[in-house]
């Protein structure tokens, strides 16, 4: 009886906001005060007052509640990052940040790829040639190359909330102006500027890496990225539907597509407002306020930049990401027209098929992130690298097959399978990225993300511009290129964890050595490195289970020399 009551008390009072480590409690309920307290009052009426409080005190002590007041709805680690991922919760700040980031990223994808499904109409209205269309497709993904790198740095300096909302609101005009485009030049320009909004990917990944801890960061990144990328598929369904609706109301074809563009533009604007009003940069608060109160140190751009670009792993991941995400973007741009022209389908049928490729993102990219986390539990970072290489290479194989099949049914099936593998590879990549650098996390995320777009630009430039290769041949060659450009993953090596073919360094190297090597001794004296120290401690899981049980962490104190 006492046990039940004390458990009930702990559920209601302590349960809601606490820093309880994983596994010690069975149930977490969302904040709900009134019914809970009345239940406690009724239940505790028969127990003497002093006894009641001693039970509560004991429970709180047992669960490790020191003097700090409990703050969060989810269990957190020492950096206040959530250690679990609750998909259907909107609890501030972690899950709310998740939902805001994926929805705003989704909106940007919808806008960027709103033109391809309507191209059969737009190309007649604006008198476009195949070269014009190819150039516009390249332009749509090239803007984000540098925007993503810049976004990474902006996140490091201003925080993901302001950085992403600014970008989204500044690119919304490009989407509005698509409605009034009247030539191939204006079409190219609006697609180019709209494409900048894809840089919100970096802020999404940065935000998730700031809100979620190592055991779930792959999953969080994967789901946020995947559900955002979903926009590229959803738009292939949404735009023809909106177009058909407006056509039914009575507009002419050449007016209907223009009106249709207001939908993605408005969606984008509203999502940016939501991010600004409801979002928070870090679990503890927003950058500006934390910087003012001294809780968050301000870092210099040049240092962030230096440590980012001198890390070779960032460059390798940028290249390989170009051949999973870049390929996904290319497919978003070409596949609707491919099916429409090759198999003589109706506009909305081609749109539906094209959508199924992007819609696979709803599970495939999160699955990649979860696979990364699951493999890391057993094999650590080495497992993450192997999984990434295998999945991405298989994506390349299916791409080659897609270019070779000639029937509609087989094409659709192979395309979906290929999309699943390629998108899972994207999720797996961002299971590795958070560990490459702590100081320049934003920049590394930006470089990788930018590399994705470079891959899209290169692929479209080489294989899908003008009429040199038929689309089928282009797709086959793209598959071959995927396989070759995935090989560099074998070269990634972390001294504390190892690489694909080598184990960890024979010299005793710890996570602290790796992450603190980014700070000079003067900076360490000022205490600027403390966030990296906490992260290093939390990242020890990347050794894998075998390592953990066999070896104990040898030298815990950070090395004093760089």
């Amino acid at each position, binding site marked *: 009886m006492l046990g039940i009551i004390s458990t009930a008390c702990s559920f209601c009072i302590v349960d809601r906001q606490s820093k309880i480590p994983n596994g010690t409690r069975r149930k977490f309920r969302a904040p709900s005060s009134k019914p809970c307290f009345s239940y406690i009052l009724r239940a505790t009426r028969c127990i003497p007052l002093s006894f009641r409080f001693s039970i509560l005190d004991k429970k709180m002590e047992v669960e490790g509640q020191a003097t700090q007041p409990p703050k969060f709805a989810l269990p957190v680690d020492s950096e206040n990052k959530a250690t679990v991922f609750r998909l259907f919760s909107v609890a501030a700040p972690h899950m709310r940040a998740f939902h805001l980031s994926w929805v705003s990223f989704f909106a940007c994808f919808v806008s960027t790829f709103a033109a391809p499904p309507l191209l*059969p109409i737009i*190309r*007649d*209205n604006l*008198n476009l*040639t*195949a*070269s014009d269309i190819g150039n516009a497709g390249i332009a749509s993904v090239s803007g984000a190359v540098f925007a993503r790198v810049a976004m990474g740095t902006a996140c490091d300096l201003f925080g993901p909330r*302001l950085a992403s*909302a*600014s970008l989204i*609101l*500044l690119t*919304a*005009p490009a989407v*509005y*102006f698509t*409605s*009034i485009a*009247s030539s191939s030049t204006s079409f190219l320009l609006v697609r180019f500027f709209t494409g900048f909004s894809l840089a919100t990917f970096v802020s999404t990944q940065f935000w998730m890496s700031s809100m979620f801890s190592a055991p779930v960061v792959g999953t969080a990144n994967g789901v946020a990225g995947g559900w955002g990328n979903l926009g590229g598929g959803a738009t292939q369904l949404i735009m023809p539907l909106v177009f058909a609706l407006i056509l039914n109301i009575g507009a*002419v*074809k*050449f*007016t209907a*597509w*223009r*009106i249709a563009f*207001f939908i993605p*533009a*408005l969606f984008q*604007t509203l999502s*940016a*407002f939501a991010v*600004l009003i409801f979002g928070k940069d870090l679990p503890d608060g927003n950058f*500006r*306020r934390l910087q*003012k109160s001294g809780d968050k140190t301000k870092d210099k751009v040049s240092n962030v930049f230096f440590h980012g670009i001198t890390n070779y792993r960032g460059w390798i991941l940028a290249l390989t990401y170009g051949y999973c995400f870049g390929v996904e973007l290319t497919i978003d741009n070409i596949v609707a027209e491919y099916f429409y*022209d090759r198999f*003589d389908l109706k506009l909305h049928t081609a749109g539906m098929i094209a959508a199924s490729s992007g819609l696979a993102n709803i599970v495939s990219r999160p699955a990649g992130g979860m696979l990364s986390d699951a493999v890391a539990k057993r094999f650590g970072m080495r497992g993450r690298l192997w999984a990434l290489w295998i999945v991405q290479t298989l994506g390349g194989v299916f791409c080659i097959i897609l270019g070779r099949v000639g029937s509609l049914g087989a094409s659709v099936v192979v395309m979906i399978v290929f999309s699943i593998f390629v998108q899972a590879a994207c999720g797996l990549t961002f299971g590795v990225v958070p560990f490459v650098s702590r100081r320049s996390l934003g920049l590394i995320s930006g470089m990788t993300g930018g590399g994705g777009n470079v891959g899209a630009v290169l692929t479209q430039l080489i294989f899908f511009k*003008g*009429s040199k290769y038929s689309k089928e041949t282009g797709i086959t060659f793209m598959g071959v290129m995927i396989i070759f450009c995935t090989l560099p993953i074998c070269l990634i090596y972390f001294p504390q964890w190892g690489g694909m073919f080598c184990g960890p360094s024979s010299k005793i190297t710890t996570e602290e050595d790796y992450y603190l090597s980014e700070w000079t001794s003067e900076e360490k004296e000022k205490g600027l490195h403390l966030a990296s120290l906490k992260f290093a401690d939390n990242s020890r899981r990347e050794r894998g289970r075998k390592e953990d049980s066999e070896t104990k962490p040898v030298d815990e104190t950070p090395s004093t020399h760089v």
Partner: protein
Amino acid sequence: MATARALLVASLVLSCFLLPCYGTVLFSSLQRTLVVTASPTSQQVLKAGVDKITVTWGLNQTLPAGTDSSYKTIRVKLCYARISQVDRPWRKTVDLLKKDKTCQHKVAARPYSPANRTTQSLDWTVERDVPTATYFIRAYAYDADDKEVAFGQTTDANTTTDLFQVQAISGRHATMDICSICFSVFSVVSLFGFFYNEKRKVH
């Protein structure tokens, strides 16, 4: 019972022979027996949704009698000239008529009777979804199985002479222009509004 089954098999086998007949007509196999004229003069520019074309078609009277015995329907179409097909694979000319994309806009479909050989004509307003391009008019004659058997066109074999142009509607409206600009300005201004608000809260 046995005869019924035999009949079924026979009809199935026969229908298999019929199937390849559909969708295999080549343009090069058609004879140019129709005479088609259109009102636009060479290089005239017509406005979509506004201007009219008068199309006249009929059998070439110099041909022997009986040439048109199988014609049942005449379909008149607006077709892209070669110059408008350059670098636009979705308007490509292919010999297999099922896959040919040269003539994408329907003008008229009229029944034809060989007994009544007078020329037919039609006034057609250029529709508002016709894109800006250079065109000619072509008429196909179809038989009772809805297969192409003959054609006629206003231009020569290489589609280079007697072409006319259509200027499409832009699809834009003043209201739309104003809305686009207003919403864009609002997005940017609201961003700065938020910044200002943030700064105010922190200080």
